[in-house]
């Protein structure tokens, strides 16, 4: 068959395919009809054959480009991954996320150390050396914290409550979750940024806490009863996002048995899943911090709720999604 005859014979199929591709790409997948998909697949295979024929006979780069575009379009249309469903997302949050986190416990432990050591140091410095605390954290920062915790945040019938708390909720989502996602993303640069975010946040939060505790009396009670509930989700999530960043850094620095590029791809998705889980936790923390923590109720109730929150977070992350011990068959095949 020569080139002219080939084009004449195949042209109808090509334009039909082009049309079909345009129609299908223009509408959502669930509206595709089975007949259309079958037709597309049939035409796609025949055009694949056409392309390899043109390639092997070198029948002109323009013709090859045209068929190449058709094959690329068809490939993009036919081979795709199934979209994530809401159920799978929920299932991931409830069981998949804690399981993944326990698999990555080493990164979690390192991240926790990077956050907790400066946090504890900061608290000690805040209590024992107020002068040093002011030097590190800045006078304005500590002054502002002291003022806001030295009196009750709201009275029982405060009209400002709804507006102010919604404003703060938006701020917490944007600020805290943003910091967590940054801690994750900066892991891609060998983890230097991640370490910085963990260390600096640890020391700052510790200093504020130490200073408040040193004031004693109402200030200390107001502060601890305010932070205890949402802290369970917030502090844990910051550590988890740090762990996600450290996983990225590890995949870059220590590829082990993989090539470096393979290592990046292998760890990229899992660390992202960790970071997104932390994002969900921080959204919950912002809700608590916005609307529950400042409620004008007895500190005792807040301490009780806070302890419960820490317990639940611990149980969830520690135990949810455990796999039943498998006694035999490591290959995972089912007995007949």
């Amino acid at each position, binding site marked *: 068959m020569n080139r002219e005859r080939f084009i004449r014979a195949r042209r109808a199929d090509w334009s039909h395919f082009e049309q079909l591709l345009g129609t299908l790409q223009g509408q959502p997948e669930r509206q595709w009809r089975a007949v259309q998909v079958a037709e597309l697949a049939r035409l796609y295979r025949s055009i*694949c054959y056409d392309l390899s024929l043109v390639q092997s006979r070198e029948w002109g780069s323009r013709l090859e480009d045209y068929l190449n575009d058709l094959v690329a379009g068809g490939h993009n249309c036919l081979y795709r991954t199934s979209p994530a469903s809401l159920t799978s997302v929920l299932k991931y949050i409830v069981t998949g996320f804690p399981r993944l986190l326990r698999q990555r416990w080493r990164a979690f432990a390192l991240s926790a150390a990077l956050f907790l050591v400066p946090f504890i140091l900061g608290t000690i410095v805040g209590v024992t050396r107020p002068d040093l605390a002011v030097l590190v954290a800045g006078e304005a920062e500590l002054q502002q914290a002291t003022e806001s915790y030295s009196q009750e945040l709201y009275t029982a019938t405060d009209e400002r409550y709804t507006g*102010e708390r919604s*404003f703060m909720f938006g701020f917490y989502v*944007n600020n805290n979750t943003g910091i967590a996602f*940054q801690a994750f993303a900066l892991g891609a640069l060998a983890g230097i940024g991640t370490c910085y975010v963990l260390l600096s946040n640890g020391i700052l939060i510790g200093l504020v806490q130490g200073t408040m505790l040193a004031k004693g009396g109402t200030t200390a009670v107001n502060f601890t009863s305010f932070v205890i509930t949402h802290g369970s989700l917030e502090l844990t999530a910051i550590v988890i996002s740090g762990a996600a960043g450290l996983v990225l850094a590890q995949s870059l620095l220590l590829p082990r048995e993989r090539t470096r590029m393979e290592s*990046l791809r292998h760890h*990229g998705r899992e660390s992202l899943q960790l970071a997104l889980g932390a994002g969900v936790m921080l959204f919950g923390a912002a809700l608590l911090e916005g609307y529950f923590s400042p409620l004008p109720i007895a500190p005792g109730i807040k301490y009780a709720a806070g302890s419960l929150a820490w317990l639940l977070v611990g149980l969830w992350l520690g135990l949810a999604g455990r796999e039943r011990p498998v006694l035999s068959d490591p290959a995972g095949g089912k007995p007949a």
Partner: protein
Amino acid sequence: MCASVARRLVDARVVVETPEGVDFRFRIAGPGQRLWAWSIDSLIKAGALAILWVVLLMLGAIGGESGLQAMAGLATIGVFVSNWFYGSLFEGLMNGQTPGKRAAGLRVLRTNGTPIDLLTATGRNFLRVADALPVGYTVGLITMLLTPKLQRLGDLFFDTMVVSEQRSPTGRPAGLTKNVEPLARSECSRKFSVPERTLAIIERLFDPERILTEGRREEIARPLSEELRKRLGWSEVWQTEGNQYEFFQKQGYKHTRFLLRVLKTFAVDDAPGGRG
């Protein structure tokens, strides 16, 4: 390593093998095209946020100071979503295209040519934070220049690439043979038809994606041109000694011109699609 990278960059193509056993090519999008798409997206984001703030604050004003604050909180969440999820949501749900990428004719694909999913889209967009450091996507630009598929960090970690989907014109390149005359019958003493395969080689020599200087192109054109001249019995006699750049310039790129004339004479524009 440098030489091989450069060679691949000049071509800017990636070959993907389908399960059907056919190789097909993607054209990788360059930093300029991606900057263009990014600029459009930035404008859209800024515009959408401005409208969101105005509308929400106007709504909030009805509820007095408290309402104003509540709506400002909501708008801040809007800022958060546009910062972190604009690219992810569009690329994940619109098959690898944000509005800006669509306008620029770009698409994000996995490196095996298949569409990306929502998680992949989220990952590559989150890592913009790292790519954008220290200013103006410097890190991203550097890794793009070091990788054959022009991938920034977000692309490397999540196995994606950005391809240009501007369809190649399928007809013969129109402007190429504009300034030359077809060979006249009287100029050739022998009957000979130039096969399509040879015409394809000539076309490839003038492919704008292959960056060649005029002198180098003339040098490459010479052996083919001489052989064709012999077979066609083309009468004019050339002096072809030496291969200095100045020599070709003095000759006025005769071989290049001759090949273009051959192309004009024998190539029939019959490619499908009809776009030219």
